[in-house]
């Protein structure tokens, strides 16, 4: 599939790229300020003359890492909460679903901004600038995006646990644990993988949005969103500065979304055999 190829190239680019293009990301060169793409600077330079290709490859690592880490947080939290709600027969389910719906109606971006605004300094002190912001952004994005996964897992559990094969295993004398781990979870996992894929792209967009608003990573960590934030006041003279990181975000998100769609079709039980 073309989208898998594009994603593979992007991932390989940010992982291996810096080895092949060993230009420091913070080398200031005022003689090459806002240079358009050339052989020296394939993606051009910014207002301090820093090489954009090198900065993008470095920042891309952070952007992708945030995407995958936040997806893991969201999927694990969502699966656990959804599974507990889906298996409980009495009071836990309505309580957990109320909390889920509550989180769903929280205005996420404002809350994200609020949390980062309030806790940024604290975390920086504990984990250092880079680590602190990274952990906070991953936890906050993941912590505000587990709800769709939880709803999905719960719905899957509710429908699967009424299926005759689950009842059959129950009638054999299987424990609840075996029921969940051997029969329900494996059958519920397909849609969760699809949702997880979409979570990656959502998290990448969320991180880019934060950085774009100037409230994500600091300027010395040039994630793609941060590059766009810095570029937006120079659009008239240096459009390349915004176009390259923007295109990188777009291509990453697009290919992940296409992969998710392909997976959805593959897992669709209604698919014609």
């Amino acid at each position: 599939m073309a989208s898998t190829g594009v994603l593979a190239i992007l991932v390989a680019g940010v992982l291996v790229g810096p080895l092949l293009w060993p230009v420091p990301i913070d080398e200031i060169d005022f003689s090459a300020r806002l240079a358009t793409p050339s052989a020296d600077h394939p993606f051009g330079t910014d207002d301090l003359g820093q090489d954009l290709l090198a900065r993008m490859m470095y920042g891309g690592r952070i952007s992708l890492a945030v995407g995958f880490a936040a997806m893991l947080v969201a999927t694990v939290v969502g699966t656990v909460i959804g599974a507990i709600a889906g298996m409980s027969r009495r009071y836990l389910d309505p309580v957990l679903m109320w909390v889920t719906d509550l989180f769903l109606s929280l205005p996420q971006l404002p809350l994200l901004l609020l949390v980062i605004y309030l806790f940024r300094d604290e975390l920086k002190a504990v984990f250092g600038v880079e680590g602190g912001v990274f952990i906070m952004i991953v936890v906050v994005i993941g912590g505000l995006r587990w709800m769709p996964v939880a709803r999905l897992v719960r719905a899957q559990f509710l429908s699967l646990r009424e299926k005759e094969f689950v009842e059959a295993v129950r009638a054999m004398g299987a424990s609840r644990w075996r029921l969940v781990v051997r029969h329900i979870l494996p059958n519920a996992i397909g849609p969760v993988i699809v949702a997880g894929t979409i979570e990656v792209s959502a998290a990448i967009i969320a991180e880019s949005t934060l950085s774009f608003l100037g409230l994500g990573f600091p300027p010395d960590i040039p994630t793609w969103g941060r590059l766009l934030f810095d570029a937006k006041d120079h659009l008239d003279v240096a459009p390349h500065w915004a176009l390259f990181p923007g295109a990188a975000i777009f291509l990453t998100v697009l290919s992940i979304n296409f992969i998710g769609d392909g997976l959805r079709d593959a897992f669709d039980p209604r698919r014609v055999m």
Partner: protein
Amino acid sequence: MTTHPVLSVDKLSTAFRVERRWREVVRSVSFTIGPKETVALVGESGSGKSVTALSLMRLTPRDSSRITGSVILGGRDLLQLPDAAMRQVRGDEIAMIFQEPMTSLNPVLTIGFQIAEALILHRGMSRAEAEAETVRLLDKVRIPAATSRIHDYPHRFSGGMRQRVMIAMALACRPKLLIADEPTTALDVTIQAQILELIKLLQEEEGMSVLFITHDMGVVAEIADRTVVMYGGEAVETGTTADIFARPAHPYTRMLLSAVPRLGSMAGHPHPVPFPKIDRTTGLPAPPEEIPDTVARAERPVLEVQDLTTRFEIRGGLLGRARGRVHAVEKVSFDLRQGETLALVGESGCGKSTTGRSVMRLIEPLSGSVLLDGEDIMALGERELRERRRKMQMIFQDPFASLDPRMTVGAAIAEPLVINRLASRAEAREKTAELLRRVGLSPDMAGRFPHEFSGGQRQRICIARALAVRPRLIVADESVSALDVSVKAQVVNLMLELQAGMKLAYLFISHDMAVVERVSHRVAVMYLGEIVEIGPRAEIFGNPQHSYTRRLLEAVPVPDPARRREKHRLSNEELKSPIRPLDYVPPERLYREVSPGHMVQVSDSAPPLPVVAAA
């Protein structure tokens, strides 16, 4: 037919495109339907009968299907008509009703509007005229208080009533031909009888022809003048219904007819009798083999159920408080001996499935006692219950749904052994092979997944899985109901054979009276959560006492055109619901012993016999 046919179908073929390849599902089918004639299109699943019906209406998906041949109606070939002209035919000259009344009506439009739609479209009526006509149509299909119900939405109607609405909609423009695609398959047997009577009556009144599609030979015998038997996409035999039943020519027809369970065929047989084995090439049955008595009468019953009661609360309203209760199972008592089959029969909502699940404590009963080999199941803790469950196993209705799609068949059969720690891995593998052989499958099939098997094979796998732990009791919940006639006979035979070999006790839950008559030693009839009559099989079928038992038996269509009922007793009695207010106290029930072991509820909870309508 001497008169000119209303519809003549010639060499009709329909192909569907599946992954870029055309697959023919109907091959060169030809038949005619005369004026006022009812023709049945009968066949098992996958025979192409429903596709034939959709093809006549040109309702198969446009882009992925291809219809060839000719369908002549009133001198025009429908397959050659332009789309606009074909739309004029649909609903006006040919109308159609479908299998699933629950999903065939649009949930967001009132039934009145949906009926009037065709009138406005084809008859050019005004809204008011159409509404008046709709009321007349609803009266015609015997929907009570028609005037007040035309503004109701479909969810306010029961399945039987919705099928009446569908019929009213189909009759709206007085079509020349009504196509009924399994219109009663989803309905309970007493409701089915009502709908069949209604269709017959309306056909006489309106003078229309009917193409009736079904898999049920009993319904065919009941309704059709002529019959077309379909098999594998082809029409293998065509003739008058009486001829086909009396002198079937094609081997497939013969096989189908000899596999059909017939109510009343068991008179004079003291024990269950397997279905006759049928020679595949000639379609002729071998003489039935008698099975010796398997019931251990001297021993203590395997299962003793006393006053079992299961209720569910219905919540609703502002705060989700309980608003009523479903009295699903109400003081049900029976016992079951080793080697014996007790059939629980009744219509949907009577509580027969809930009883089966309550006995196994898959659903927690409210009260009562369940003794398995003398031990009270109700008193067990969760761990002990799990352990004891290996003495009682369950076989479900849908064999595909009851196998984990991600587990090989071998692993599924071995699973109960693994769960109960009864065998090592190697022993389990050996045992699985033996079980597969025992249910008539090959041991090398163990590595395959459920979707690679046919419906009948899957049910054999489920039986093998249930047998793995050598249970004493098997609860078979509609286990053969979803299977095609020929497969059904084989699975029933297997179950009888296993009962004799392994001394199994069966709690056989079914709505199919003809199968029940063949397999059971004793029968319990359930109605609104209670057993209204219980006794030896021959007594229940030969000497039914309770009015509900009689109604149930009367409603079963008999696959014999010679015994077709001529009486037109139209009723619109609905199935009663077991939902009661919170303060409802169930009355004390008394039972009368008719003959040894044959008990009838005295306080008659069945509704009065339906009123005879002036036909």
